C-alpha cells in the first residue's frame, strides 16, 4: 500500500503583534497555498498518491483545490489526491491537535507542517512517532528550518516511500515538558515546548506573542542556535547547543531588565527585526530528564514564543527536558543520500544499506 502523508497548514500563524512592533513577515494565504501545491507536486513525484489535510476555513484549502482543479483542467496529473480530515473547525489550536491525532490514527507516514514554532509544537504534542517535515510560515521559526518547500516535499516523499532508509531519513528531537500543578485545586496541566520556555513576571496572556524583555526572568531551551530568531537566540549567543546534542540550556535574566545588575549584557535578536539589550545573571546546561523548578514564583509561561499559561505563588511549576521526544524528517540527510545514490536519475544506484 502506498504511503499516505498528512498535511497540517495553519492559516493563522504569522498574524500576531510582531507585524506591528517588529516588521515581522506575514506570509499571505495565497503563498501558503502555493507552498502546499509545491509540496504536493514533490510528493506526487515520489509516488505519494494520497494526502490527508487538516480542514480549515482560513482559505488555504480553497486556494489549493483551485490550483489542483486548474492543473486537472489542463490535463496535468501532478498532484496526489487530497482528503480533508472529517472534523469540525473551531479556528483554534484545538484543530491542529485534533487533526494530528486523526491523521496519526489513520496511519500517515509523515506530517508536513506549515506554520511557525507554535504550530509545530501543537503537532508535536499529538504526533507520537510520526515524523514531522516542517516548513516555516510563522514568525519566530526557530524550529522549522528555512528551505524551499519543494525540497522538503521531495525529502518527505523519498523518506516515506522507503527510498531512503529510516535511520538516515528521520532524526530525533528534544522537547521541554512543562508541568503546572494548581495549588488551589490540585489540577495538573502539562504542556511542552520544542525550542524554548520563557518565564515572565506579567501574569496575563494578552496578545500572546512575547516581544518585551523587561519582565523576562528565565529561559529554557532545547537547543541554542545562534543562527535562529527569537528568545532562544539569547541562549544561542551565550553558549551554542546543537539540536542533536543531549540536553539544553537554562538562562537567568536580571530582574526588571536592569542591565546594571547583570553579570553580562547581551544584544540579541529576540524577534524579527528587533534587537534587545538583555541583562544575563547566569546560565547553565540543562541535562535531560532532570526537573527544574524555576525561581520565578508567579507570572506567565511563554512556550516557543507565545504566552500560553499563567501561574501564581500557589502553583507548582517544573520543567524537564526530554531527549528523543519526537521525530522529524532530516531533509538535508535525505537529499544528500538521494544525490549520492542518484535516486532521481532514470537508473538509480541501488540503495546502499549501512
Amino acid at each position, binding site marked *: 500500500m502506498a504511503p499516505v502523508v498528512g498535511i497540517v497548514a495553519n*492559516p493563522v500563524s*504569522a498574524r500576531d503583534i510582531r507585524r*506591528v512592533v517588529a516588521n515581522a513577515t*506575514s506570509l499571505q494565504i495565497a503563498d501558503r497555498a502555493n507552498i502546499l501545491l509545491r509540496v504536493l507536486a514533490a510528493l506526487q513525484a515520489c509516488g505519494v498518491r494520497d494526502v490527508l489535510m487538516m480542514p480549515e476555513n482560513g*482559505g488555504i484549502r480553497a486556494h489549493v483545490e483551485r490550483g489542483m482543479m486548474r492543473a486537472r483542467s489542463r490535463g496535468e496529473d501532478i498532484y496526489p489526491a487530497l482528503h480533508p480530515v472529517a472534523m469540525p473547525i473551531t479556528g483554534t489550536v484545538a484543530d491542529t491537535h485534533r487533526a494530528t491525532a486523526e491523521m496519526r490514527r489513520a496511519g500517515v507516514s509523515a506530517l508536513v507542517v506549515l506554520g511557525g514554532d507554535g504550530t509545530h509544537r501543537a503537532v508535536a504534542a499529538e504526533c507520537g512517532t510520526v515524523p514531522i517535515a516542517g516548513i516555516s510560515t510563522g514568525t519566530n521559526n526557530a524550529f522549522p528550518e528555512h528551505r524551499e518547500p519543494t525540497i522538503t516535499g521531495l525529502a518527505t516523499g523519498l523518506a516515506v516511500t522507503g527510498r531512503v532508509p529510516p535511520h538516515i531519513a528521520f532524526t530525533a528531537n528534544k522537547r521541554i515538558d512543562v508541568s503546572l500543578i494548581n495549588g488551589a485545586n490540585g489540577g495538573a496541566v502539562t504542556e511542552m515546548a520544542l525550542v524554548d520556555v520563557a518565564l515572565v513576571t506579567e501574569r496575563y496572556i*494578552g496578545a500572546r506573542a512575547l516581544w518585551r524583555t523587561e519582565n523576562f526572568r528565565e529561559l529554557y531551551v532545547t537547543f541554542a542556535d545562534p543562527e535562529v530568531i527569537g528568545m532562544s537566540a539569547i541562549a544561542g549567543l551565550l553558549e551554542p547547543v546543537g539540536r542533536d546534542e543531549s540536553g539544553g540550556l537554562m538562562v537567568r535574566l536580571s530582574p526588571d531588565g536592569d542591565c546594571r545588575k547583570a553579570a553580562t549584557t547581551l544584544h540579541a535578536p529576540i524577534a524579527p527585526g528587533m534587537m534587545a539589550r538583555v541583562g544575563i545573571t547566569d546560565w547553565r546546561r540543562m541535562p535531560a530528564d532532570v526537573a527544574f523548578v524555576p525561581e520565578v514564583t508567579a507570572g506567565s509561561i511563554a512556550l516557543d514564543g507565545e504566552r500560553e499559561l499563567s501561574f*501564581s505563588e500557589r502553583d507548582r511549576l517544573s520543567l524537564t527536558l526530554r531527549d528523543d521526544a519526537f521525530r522529524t524528517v532530516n531533509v538535508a540527510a535525505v537529499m544528500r543520500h538521494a544525490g549520492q545514490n542518484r535516486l532521481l536519475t532514470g537508473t538509480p544506484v541501488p540503495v546502499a544499506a549501512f
Partner: protein
Amino acid sequence: MAQNPFPLGKDELLKAYRTMRTIREFEERLHVDFAKGDIPGFVHLYAGEEACATGIMMHLNDNDRIASTHRGHGHCIAKGVDVHAMMAEIYGRSTGACRGKGGSMHIADLSKGMMGANGILGAGAPLICGAALAAKVRGDRGVGITFVGDGASNQGTFLESLNLAAVWNLPVVFVVENNGYAESTAMEWAVSCDSYVDRATGFGMPGVTVDGTDFFAVYEAAGEIIRRARDGGGPALLECNMVRFYGHFEGDAQTYRAKGELEAIRATRDCLTILSERVIEAGVIGRDELQTIDREVNALIEDAVRAAKAAPLPVAEDLLRDVYVSY
C-alpha cells in the same frame, strides 16, 4: 490581595469591566424591549463583541476620533457617549444624543470623538482618514479608529481608504470586527483573500489578528498599534475575531448558523466571562466587586430606559431644523 499581574491597574480593570457590562446590559435590554415593540426602526446589537470596543477605546481620549458601524452601540458606550442620551435616541426622543433625528444607526457625539454610527457599510473608513488628516495637520497627536465588519471590509471605499491612509501615512487604525458573518453570509465565502492581515499587507501596512473575545489580547495589540500611529508610524489593521450573540438585526432567526453554534459561543467565548474569571482567578478583583458593578449598571440601564420612555418626542418644528448651519 495578590499582586496585580495585568497591564492595567485595578481601577482601569474595573472601568473596563464596567464598560463591557454596560454594553452587554444595554444590548440585552434592547433585545427585550425591541421584541416588545417599544423601539421604532431596527437595531443591530453588539452583545458578545464588548471586549473589542473596550480593549481599543481604553487607549483613546476625547481628542481621538472613531467612526463606527451600523452595530455601533458598543463603540459609543466605550467611547464615553452618555448612556441616557443613547437610550433616548434609540427611543426616538428629543433628549436623544441626536435629538431623535438619527436613531440607533446614527448615534454620534463629536465632543467625545465619536463621529457617528453609520448606516452605510464601510463609509466610516474614508471619514476617519479625514479625521486622522485633521489631527496630522493640527499636529495634535490624535488618532482615528474606524471599525468595519468582515462584511463591509469588501466595500471598495474601505479598500481605497487603506491605500489612502498608507499613501498619506495617516494615524489611522482599521479595526476589522470579524464576527464571521456579513449579515447572514459567511466571511469565509465572501472575503476572497481570507485573511485581513493579507489585505493589510497588500496595502503596505502591517496587519494583526487577535482573539477579539479576549480583552487583554485586544488591549495589548491595540495599545501597540495606536501608540505606533500616534507616534507617526502610520496606519495598521487590527482584526478581532469575535462572536455575535444575536442576529444581524433584531428579529433575525439566524437560520444560517450551524446547530449548537450559538450555545457553544455563549458557553465558551463570552468575553465578559473570560475577563471576569481571569481577574477573579488572579485575585485582583473580587467577585463581589464585579457584582456591585453589575447592580449599578443594571440600575443605570433601567433608569436610562425609564427616562427615555418619559422623555418628550421631537415636535413638528424639529422636522425642518438643522438641515444646514445657515440657509
